[in-house]
């Protein structure tokens, strides 16, 4: 058993000595220290089964650590009530399931649950939060439509709206772009970027998300965490982290890294060991 390091967390959410796993003797994540910078977008990347989603689940108290701890505002997560956590930390799982026949507004309004009591089922604050969440995700026009009847992209925006309605400073998104086509992926990620941008009404939110696509991660992250075999291989600003060496080390992929022609962020272009159509002959 490793002892959690004593280092003061840099932000509101941090992990110390986190060991996670579904079976006792096979940890998926081993002795992980992680600091989530406030008001930034942190993206966790890594190959399949590296433990990135597992880590995110632990940060969102969906998975109990085998050892180590997750700290929220300096308190150990497992000592806090799940409702108390839900007031500070929102979370959208990879494949959320909505009840049959629920409408958009009904689903989004459920994001208010942690702020409500059975005798306070709908305060003006609830209403304001739901309106804002739906406007921000541009689903207000769909309010009375059944969620079942929406396209994949619309549905994902509705789920994000639900998480936003929770009005938490911290937001964890587990692969929010899965199952979406590229246009909808960009749409969702633009929204994520926006959330971490302070506005007049609200300070910047802290977003932690798991992404599959390294280029998207490099483009949208303020803080990139690359994981391999349950450990952190590298972390920092994408420009520092995303290098040809890292791509090779973490993903085992030979690639060149060039600046993204639009944003200037690192762009990973895999090398071609065999000729590909359209490539140089």
């Amino acid at each position: 058993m490793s002892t959690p390091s004593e280092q003061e967390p840099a932000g509101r959410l941090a992990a110390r000595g986190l060991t996670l796993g579904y079976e006792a003797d096979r940890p998926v994540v081993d002795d992980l220290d992680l600091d989530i910078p406030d008001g930034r977008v942190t993206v966790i990347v890594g190959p399949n089964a590296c433990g990135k989603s597992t880590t995110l689940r632990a940060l969102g108290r969906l998975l109990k650590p085998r050892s180590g701890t997750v700290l929220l505002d300096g308190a150990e997560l497992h000592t806090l009530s799940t409702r108390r956590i839900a007031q500070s930390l929102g979370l959208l799982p990879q494949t959320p399931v909505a009840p049959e026949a629920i409408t958009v507004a009904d689903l989004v309004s459920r994001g208010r649950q942690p702020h409500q009591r059975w005798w306070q089922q709908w305060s003006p604050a609830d209403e304001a939060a739901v309106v804002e969440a739906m406007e921000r995700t541009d689903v207000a026009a769909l309010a009375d439509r059944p969620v079942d009847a929406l396209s994949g992209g619309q549905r994902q925006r509705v789920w994000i709206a639900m998480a936003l309605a929770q009005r938490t400073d911290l937001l964890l998104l587990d692969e929010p772009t899965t199952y979406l086509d590229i246009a909808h992926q960009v749409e969702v990620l633009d929204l994520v970027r926006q959330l971490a941008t302070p506005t007049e009404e609200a300070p910047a939110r802290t977003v932690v998300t798991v992404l599959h696509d390294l280029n998207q991660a490099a483009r949208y992250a303020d803080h990139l965490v690359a994981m391999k075999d349950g450990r952190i291989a590298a972390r920092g600003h994408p420009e520092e982290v995303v290098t040809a060496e890292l791509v090779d080390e973490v993903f085992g992929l030979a690639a060149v890294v060039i600046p993204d022609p639009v944003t200037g962020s690192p762009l990973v272009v895999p090398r071609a060991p065999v000729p590909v159509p359209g490539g140089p002959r």
Partner: protein
Amino acid sequence: MTATLGGPRAATTGRAGARPTGYRVLRLPGGASFLLHGRALLAATVLALVLAAGCVASLSFGESTVPPQEAVRSVLGLTDEHDFVIGVLRLPRLTVALLVGAALAVAGALIQTVARNPLASPDIIGVSQGAAAVAVIAMTYGLASTAALPYWAIAGGLAAAGLVYLFAWRGGLHAARFVLVGIGFAVALRSVTQLFLTKGDHTVAQQATVWMTGSFHGRGYAEAEPLAWALLAVLPAVCWAARAQRTVTLDDDTATALGTRLNATRLGLASVGVLLAALATGTAGPVDFVALLSPQIARRLTGTAQIPLATTALVGASLTVLADLLARTLFSPTELPAGVVTAAIGAPYLLWLILKNRTGGRT
């Protein structure tokens, strides 16, 4: 459609989208506020009228007919002319039918919520069978006087549910496993009942068989009273359950993310459901299909995303009251057990539900 999230905000529908579709807000002084579903309120009102009409009909019709207004006057104590037929025979029995129907229906709603399965119900996951098995064993060994029988049945229902929990629990109450284990126990307990029926005294077997079809015959205030107290006692729990339904109907992770203590909540919901089912079954025997169907009928009436509990209770009460009225009068003077009537209504509906689920199922 592609929305431009970065661009200017799209025009919103404003108020209409501000609160969950179909709900109205009731604000009380002091900051209390309640979400009320418009169509659910309407459905509940209509059902209350249907139920009231059913109650009056139950009090009016039988071997002798009491005019409806006379029946109401009798209940209100404005006349003592029908004190025996209404006061002693019909009203107590009606009261039991009403309470049993409401209790079974709410039990079904809670168990379907926990199981996330419209085909789950206390008569499928072993509660009714547990109640029946213990009741029959108690009868067979002469342990139970007629008065004590409901308590044995309640104990049996609770014990069966406890075993189902125990075997279904694996670090949490998983919906599908809960149903499967329940079905297994239901089958096993039914065999136990059969075994004791054949082993036991034949008059006991006859009595038990009658009890096992679910009947309000001979039930009265003595049975209604404990049930009424119990219902009143679990009323706050039912209010809590209505609130908890908003999250437990989502997937596990999302529900947890919204601050729900999922295992505790599920256990709570299922426990209230099992308690209600055991009480109702103990009182009248297993009145089939009421628990299974009432929640689904109610949900179709209201169009809500979760099962509306008050509407469900009214559907259940209406079903049992009308079933018992038919059971008493259809082949008069021979009385059918009410459970036979509910089964006759319920079985085709269940079939339809299954067929519809198969063709129009969601992922």
